[in-house]
């Protein structure tokens, strides 16, 4: 114990014998660590926004479909079982939220224009925790209940259809016999969304109204479930699978939206690669500093060896010196990154490239998010690899022949 203390004191004093060199190296480590954590926080923030916009919005966490529905999203591929049967299976269970929907491709027509859209017949009460539209009604109101006879459309769609609140539009789709099913609706609400593309894609109507229009009684094409944590849906997935007929498709969000799924999975890989790349760039400087520090102390090290200090203590000394340097750099880097994230908490406005971000599925304000696991990864990688990188100079220092080392000029 006492020995370790001496080692630590020696290492610490050695570190400050050439304070310029040490300060430069600490600055390098600080900047490196800051970049590691800050960049990661930005990327995490972006992915979080993508998840919020892309998943919380409509897909929920887990969905059930008819096995053919994903390839052929038609009203013919209904989920077997009436509303009451679904209610009896899922109603008593504990979910954050669940809802049945009729989701079919359709055409919306105003007096002037026609557009292809995705029609969602929903039960607004059951959907309240799932869909985004509830917060973003800019004009009019949202659907009252499943039997509401109005539709809610996006702001962009209003422009494209040349219509407005209170006007009538016609929705056309097919019924299970492939007869054209159509019905007039009054526009009762207009929603705003980020990304904008939802405004052109989705049209919301009452579930029962749509079921009546399509002649499918009380059947639905999808059931959507919301769990507690989007990053951990396995339990929810298992629970839903256990409750459902095995002939049906039960899919988590990352299979429904493979782009987002891949994005989130890639993030973990990206964090590690990024941290390691930065560390490698740093490591050349670190090893260099240690080599130099050892080199200018050859005589002194020789003397210590000659006086009987075991070589292992020389190794220890150099390693402690290196770790002390890294720790200071880490502390400063972490603090700086934290400061940067807190300063930018209100989001970074990147609306200059909003449409580009939309292509990537992200929104136009970037909120950096610190993930504890990322911070820990960065710190551990730096310490562990730093330790490994200092082994070689430390080992070389302990291998000097005392006599040669002392007499070296």
């Amino acid at each position, binding site marked *: 114990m006492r020995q370790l203390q001496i080692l630590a004191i020696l290492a610490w004093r050695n570190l400050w014998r050439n304070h310029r060199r040490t300060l430069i190296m600490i600055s390098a480590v600080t900047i490196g660590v800051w970049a590691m954590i800050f960049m990661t926080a930005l990327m995490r923030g972006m992915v979080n926004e993508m998840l919020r916009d892309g998943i919380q919005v409509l897909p929920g966490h887990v969905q059930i479909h008819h096995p053919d529905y994903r390839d052929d999203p038609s009203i013919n591929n209904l989920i077997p079982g009436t509303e009451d049967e679904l209610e009896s299976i899922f109603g008593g269970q504990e979910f954050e939220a669940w809802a049945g929907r009729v989701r079919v491709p359709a055409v919306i027509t105003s007096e002037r224009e026609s557009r292809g859209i995705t029609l969602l017949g929903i039960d607004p009460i059951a959907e309240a925790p799932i869909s985004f539209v509830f917060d973003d009604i800019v004009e009019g109101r949202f659907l009252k209940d499943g039997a509401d006879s109005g539709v809610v459309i996006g702001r962009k769609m209003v422009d494209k259809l040349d219509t407005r609140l209170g006007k009538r539009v016609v929705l056309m789709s097919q019924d299970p016999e*492939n007869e054209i099913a159509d019905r007039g609706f009054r526009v009762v609400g207009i929603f705003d969304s980020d990304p904008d593309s939802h405004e052109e894609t989705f049209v919301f109507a009452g579930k029962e109204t749509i079921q009546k229009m399509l002649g499918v009684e009380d059947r639905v094409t999808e059931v959507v479930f919301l769990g507690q944590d989007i990053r951990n849906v396995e339990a929810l997935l298992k629970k839903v699978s256990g409750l459902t007929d095995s002939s049906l498709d039960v899919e988590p969000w990352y299979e429904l939206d493979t782009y987002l799924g891949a994005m989130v999975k890639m993030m973990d890989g990206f964090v590690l690669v990024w941290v390691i790349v930065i560390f490698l*760039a740093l490591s050349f400087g670190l090893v260099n500093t240690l080599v130099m520090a050892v080199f200018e102390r050859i005589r002194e090290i020789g003397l210590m060896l000659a006086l009987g200090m075991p070589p292992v203590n020389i190794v220890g000394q150099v390693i402690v010196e290196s770790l002390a340097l890294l720790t200071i750099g880490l502390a400063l880097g972490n603090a700086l990154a934290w400061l940067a994230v807190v300063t930018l908490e209100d989001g970074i406005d990147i609306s200059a490239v909003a449409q580009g971000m939309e292509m990537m599925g992200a929104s136009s304000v970037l909120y950096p998010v610190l993930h504890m696991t990322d911070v820990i990864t960065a710190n551990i990688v730096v310490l562990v690899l730093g330790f490994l990188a200092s082994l070689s100079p430390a080992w070389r220092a302990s291998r000097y022949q005392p006599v040669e080392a002392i007499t070296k000029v």
Partner: protein
Amino acid sequence: MNIILRLAWRNLWRQPRRTWLTTGAMVFSNTLLIFMMSLQFGTYELMIDNSLQSFSGHLQVQAPGYIDDSKMRQSVPGVRALAETYRQDAVFENVAARGTAFALASSDDRSYGIQVIGVEPGFEPGVSNIPGLVKEGRYLDGIDATEIIIGAVLARNLRVDIGDELTMLGTGRDGSFAAAIVSIVGIFDSGIAALDRSIAEIPLGLFQDTFAMDGAGHQVVITTADLAYVPAAKLEAENLLPPDSSLVVHDWDALQPGLRQAIQADLTSAWFMYIVLVVLVAFSVMNTQLMSVLERTKEFGIVMSLGLTPGRLGRLVMLETALMGIMGLLLGAVLGALVTAWLSVVGFSYPGMEEMAANFNLPARMYPKISLLTLFGGPAIVLIGTLASALYPALRLYRLQPVEAMRAA
């Protein structure tokens, strides 16, 4: 000069390990920069090509406002004649007229809302790659034929094949009911599900009859031989517009604003990483050069007392750095070029990339593309950063007092 060069070179090799470590930092960053930049620019080029080839072309003549709202009424009168006028001008490589509408397409079993594009069968293959992607059957023939080609996913969903008939229902330009029966002559497969699911092409003559266009269309699509000619071609296209017409010409940047912005956003985040790398290398060099100056204090003191000016010594230090930097640049360029060249043959992929790439019309394997810019752009910046960081040690020499320096241990 010669003697300073020789001195600098020899000084570098007084501490070969240190020199190699510092050069190593540069080689590492340079290799990484070359690879990343080549991959990036290769990707951007593909992104632009793939997105523009499928539909939008390089330039489009449209009615004002069509780009935002794309309403049926916002049409280009006498669209075929206008396209013909453009065709007379050699600046434009390919010119084709189009009309675009939404319709409900019904087969015996199914109905889907689709985008129907009226095209000139003779000219469309010049501006779009869809005609070339017809895998079954053939492309459209006459300008008035009652024919249609549809995407592979749509064909599967509608459960139709070559020779089957489809009914199209939609709204005409004047708000009237539009309907037509067409027979399927070809099925295209672009591999992009969103296109294959929602697009159909019919001859422009048929389109104009069906949707009451009265000889009008919605776009004249133009491609030029190279993206670089687009600005000049745009001016020319504006000059060729009929006098006192309100039509406008949009270039690809305006047609697909997301594309350039996605590239910009990606570039910005990439720049952040590049700058961090360069800064880390610069610190490493600063440290090395500071050490090499400090350990030569005595020597510098002697040569200064012999009459060498601090300016010449400073140049010596800068020259040493420059030599090291050039070594790093050349080795990095060779290594980077090798790695990139190898990957440009075998391709590059990582888990999750396929899903991500599909979002941007990209293939699942990327082939980085080396150019002079990507090969020397990054390393040149590293070299500049290196030289800048050596200024501090070099300028310190001006404060050196020869007598004191000679006495230094």
